[in-house]
């Protein structure tokens, strides 16, 4: 049988008749497609065709591969529906029946028909029984062929440990000297060409803060690592309990009135008791800072009145006159804020 010869091209090309060749298949399918083309040609010859164009043969080869994939997919789906992952003969028969249902087969109308004696199986038996065998021209090996992984260097084979749980097709681990800081490891094991010095120096960047956590690979040893750990406060291991004595902190209660006189008693004694308990002595030493929250003169007058009355009203302790000026200011602001919403309500 003549065949419009020529190998399938990856890219569409113009043949001798100046017609565009169709793009046949992808790289991975080319081998399978070529084999199926040979099978299809043999089947066409057995059917009775003497000649054929290239394109119908390519189309039929594609149809054949799609048919095989379709049968496989249907069989798997039937097996999965039955709760299995491995297909059996009945899954295949059901898949073939589904494909043949478009055309029809004997016994299709009977819903309870036996799968073993299905019309599809009988048709196939008829094909086999005829005995007209046309074996495939030539023999092909199992494909795809898996390339045996060869060790790149002797170093790799030495360092490689046989892990049972890691599949072989994964890439091998990198050289341990690249990620384990070991003083014993030689720098010659990792070629200098492979290591590129970074343009940006992390050491200089972090030297301001004193933390030398980053260091170029291959130049560290155990001592340097300890140095780094000690210098960086975040890398220091935590102290055990009660190693360092820390003074207990006493929190004064809020109710207790802070007596300025008591606090400064030692100072007063040292100065010889010359502090005069006058009303405006301490207050006049530093001018009070008043926050002008209110707008207009009203608030100002209120504030001034408060200032005058504050001194008279807050005489619940004798030492109130000598209160901290900040506290007095805070009280004034509080009072003003209390009265302010009332003002607003009136407005």
């Amino acid at each position, binding site marked *: 049988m003549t065949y419009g010869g020529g190998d399938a091209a990856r890219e569409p090309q113009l043949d001798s008749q100046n017609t565009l060749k169709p793009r046949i298949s992808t790289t991975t399918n080319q081998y399978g497609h070529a084999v199926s083309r040979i099978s299809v040609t043999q089947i066409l010859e057995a059917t009775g065709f003497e000649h054929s164009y290239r394109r119908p043969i390519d189309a039929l080869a594609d*149809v054949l591969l799609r048919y095989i994939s379709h049968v496989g997919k249907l069989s798997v789906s039937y097996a999965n529906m039955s709760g299995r992952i491995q297909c059996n003969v009945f899954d*295949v028969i059901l898949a073939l029946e589904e494909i043949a249902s478009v055309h029809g087969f004997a016994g299709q109308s009977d819903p309870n028909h036996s799968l073993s004696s299905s019309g599809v199986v009988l048709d196939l038996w008829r094909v086999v029984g005829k005995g007209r065998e046309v074996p495939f021209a030539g023999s*092909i090996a199992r494909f795809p062929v898996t390339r045996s992984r060869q060790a790149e260097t002797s170093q790799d084979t030495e360092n490689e440990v046989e892990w049972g749980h890691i599949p072989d097709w994964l890439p091998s681990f990198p050289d341990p000297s690249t990620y384990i800081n070991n003083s014993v490891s030689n720098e010659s094991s990792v070629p200098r060409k492979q290591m590129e010095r970074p343009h940006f120096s992390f050491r200089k960047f972090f030297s301001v803060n004193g933390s030398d956590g980053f260091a170029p690979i291959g130049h560290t040893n155990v001592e340097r690592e300890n140095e780094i750990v000690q210098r960086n406060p975040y890398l220091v291991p935590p102290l055990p309990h009660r190693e360092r004595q820390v003074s207990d902190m006493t929190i004064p209660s809020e109710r207790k009135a802070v007596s300025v006189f008591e606090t400064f008693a030692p100072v007063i004694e040292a100065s010889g008791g010359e502090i005069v308990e006058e009303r405006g002595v301490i207050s006049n030493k530093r001018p009070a800072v008043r926050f002008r929250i209110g707008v207009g003169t009203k608030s100002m007058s209120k504030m001034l009145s408060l200032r005058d009355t504050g001194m008279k009203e807050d005489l619940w302790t004798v030492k109130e006159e000598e209160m901290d000026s900040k506290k007095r200011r805070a009280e004034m602001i509080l009072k003003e804020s209390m009265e302010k919403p009332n003002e607003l309500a009136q407005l």
Partner: protein
Amino acid sequence: MMSGSGNSSGAASTAGADGRHDDDAALTEFLSSLMDYTPTIPDELVEHYLGRSGFNCPDLRLTRLVAVAAQKFISDIASDALQHSKARVAAPIKDNKSKQPKDKRLVLTMEDLSKALREYGVNLKHPEYFADSPLTGTDPPTREE
């Protein structure tokens, strides 16, 4: 009545069981005969494409079964295309002025194949023309000249 119907169903079930047994035996015989028959489509090709679809079965007989089914499928399409081709060759020639006699060679063309595939639910359409020039598809007055 009930017992009678029960008995009859029991008899039918036993008959059915025997029938099923026969069917299974026939299927087993068929599968064993597959090992003696070498399909045109090689096992390696079928195994590869079945594996790509997730078909996982170490039994070679199932692979042969799929190979035989695929071979039958393609041969059915080929025979349908052959019928179309023969019909075209046998058709009376309308134009008696044709110089060349009708080619009696059986050549598989895209036209015959697409007709045959259409019955199997495969849509294979050949492009009518290639629009490689602006005049393609138009009604050119220059051609007749």
